């Protein structure tokens, strides 16, 4: 029952290409996240799976069956919209009941299912209200309830948390994880928030400009980014990337010189332009000079309790470092001594950004 996008291309009448040879497959029961910046095509991919858009070329399959031209109502999928899309003229109860009503479920069964769903999402007291009387968070839960009440095999969610405030977003995220575990259905979740993606997904598909850049578990995406783009998109703050050249045993980027004595992997292009990547939390910052460190000046000290983020500069190169403990006396303007541990280094091609190591 694999769900698959096979070589999907989607161009719109105005000429924009939303998806370009988009190819993705996943198994039922997964919580798949489509992650990417705005305009990357993630919403379009979701809508094509739903049947609300048809691809210009390529096909969509479920369990080997081509469903590219099947109407939405015959696909066994439901959707939670970013704007919730509740029926303004129906009560909350009627909203949630609608998919069951359409499928001619008997009245007592509808009653039971709606109440059960409402209890699961803690919105029982809202059942008699109308959408315009609900807050954002409440409306969102109603939308989720409506999407899950008839137990579809696949539930699609198009940026459902984007319109909620930060606190609510966090709370609802946890609820969605719980629901997924309880109902054991396939969830496909679209978001631009990488933190959300890492938290929710069993596997994450990172998109850029209509194509999948990497598809893997949160761990893989975080620790083994396939391209520079992924490294720069994931993380809070995201990974540092420094453009420079390898010359002999050194990596040079302007005034910044990192000694590579006996360290670089064989696949690296020797003596050529390359991009060095390192995550802020992997950067070691010392107050005193130590062997293998480079001197850098602190520009900004940004406290994010319990950690501290330092914005460092050396010549034209800027870096972010995330420290659990700030060395004594370090303030804006101080000189610190930075080491880039070998194990945390990531190397990307100067052209195209593909991971080299």
């Amino acid at each position, binding site marked *: 029952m694999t769900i698959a996008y096979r070589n999907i291309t989607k161009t719109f009448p105005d000429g924009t290409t939303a998806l370009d040879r988009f190819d993705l497959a996943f198994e039922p029961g997964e919580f798949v996240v489509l992650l990417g910046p705005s305009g990357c095509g993630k919403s379009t991919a979701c809508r094509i799976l*739903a049947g*609300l858009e048809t691809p210009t070329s390529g096909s969509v399959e479920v369990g080997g069956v081509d469903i590219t031209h099947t*109407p939405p*109502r015959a696909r066994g999928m439901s959707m939670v919209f970013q704007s919730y899309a509740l029926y*303004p003229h129906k009560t909350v109860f009627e909203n949630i009941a609608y998919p069951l009503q359409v499928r001619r479920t008997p009245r007592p069964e509808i009653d039971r299912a709606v109440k059960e769903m409402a209890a699961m999402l803690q919105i029982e007291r809202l059942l008699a209200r109308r959408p315009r009387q609900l807050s954002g968070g409440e409306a969102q839960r109603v939308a989720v309830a409506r999407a899950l009440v008839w137990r579809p095999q696949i539930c699609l969610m198009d940026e459902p948390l984007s319109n909620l405030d930060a606190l609510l977003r966090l709370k609802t995220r946890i609820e969605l994880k719980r629901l997924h575990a309880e109902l054991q259905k396939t969830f496909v979740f679209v978001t631009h928030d990488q933190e959300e993606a890492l938290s929710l997904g069993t596997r994450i598909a990172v998109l850029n400009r209509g194509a999948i850049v990497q598809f893997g578990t949160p761990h893989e995406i975080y620790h083994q980014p396939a391209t520079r783009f992924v490294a720069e998109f994931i993380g809070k703050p995201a990974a540092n990337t420094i453009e420079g050249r390898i010359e002999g045993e050194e990596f040079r980027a302007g005034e910044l010189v990192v000694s590579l004595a006996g360290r670089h992997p064989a696949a690296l292009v020797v003596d050529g332009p390359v991009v060095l990547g390192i995550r802020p939390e992997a950067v070691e910052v010392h107050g005193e000079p130590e062997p293998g460190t480079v001197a850098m000046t602190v520009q900004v000290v940004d406290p994010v309790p319990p950690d501290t983020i330092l914005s460092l500069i050396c010549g034209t190169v800027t870096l972010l470092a995330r420290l659990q403990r700030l060395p004594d006396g370090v303030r804006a303007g101080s000189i610190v001594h930075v080491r880039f541990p070998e194990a945390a280094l990531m190397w990307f091609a100067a052209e195209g950004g593909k991971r080299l190591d």
Partner: protein
Amino acid sequence: MGPRRRLTHRVVEESVRVSHRPPQRRLLRLAARLGEVLADRGMGPAFLLPAVLLLFIILVGPFFYTIFLGFTDLSYSTPGHDGNFVGLANYRRLLADDPVFWHSVATTLRFVASSVSIEMVLGFGLALVLAAQVRRPRAVMPLLLVPMMLAPVAVGLLWKLVLQGEFGMVSYYLRKLGLIAEDTSLLGDSHLALATMVMVDIWQWTPFVTLVSLAGLLGLPRPPFEAAMMDGAGRVRIFFDITLPLMRPLLAMVLLLRTIDAFKEFDKVFLMTGGGPGISTELLSIYVYRVNFRNWDLGYGAVCAFMVYLVVLILCKLFYNALGQAGGSKPT
């Protein structure tokens, strides 16, 4: 000193410099201050009063005058009836002694019911077709609007021309298609005239219903429709469960608007048949016209006119409520 006061202060300083006379200074400053206050706080009354005043003089005054007239026997055609007070005589005559008035009421009700109901169905249906089947419906609308933009009198003239017994274009083709008999005159037959009038009204005003319905349909939010598709609903289901309920407030408002206007119908009927043949097409407004401006029975005519006003006023209140439901320009 705030920016506003700086402005007026400068104006005052200028005028003072020009005037050269110290005693004037205080007066000018006062005048400037007064102007400023008026321009600020006096805005409400100053802006509203002229309009309200004009309407009071043109409408409200005459309205009360109508009520007053209704208690007199004023008539330009009967000597001695110069407006003497006659109490409720006119009202008694209306309620007990004027079958023609009540006939015109019945005729008007039949006219309104038939034309408005058919216009709503045809107009909304056409809007649905436009919204669903035509790529750029708004580009097509101007072509459809012509009938409703013509002066109603001209509409009457137009149809009188094409429905002429002998050489009217439409009568000719209707006869050729076998839809009417050789010797029927649509406007000259007391059994057919009112139906013909209804048909002309439908021709004239269906575009209005189409125009407004289309605007409403195109303004409906998309997400609930997509949600319904995901929830499993087919096209027919979506129409009855989503489209119609969401369109209901607007359709109610259009219905009331057409009802009020159809109730007041005068121009084209006046020109086409003048109320005839006999009184088969004598709508209320035509009857009131006849009483007031043919018979010049102005006292009694005022009562008739007042009755029409009353009905419209009630419909107006209903319309105002429907407008609020449909999201109209009600003050917040």
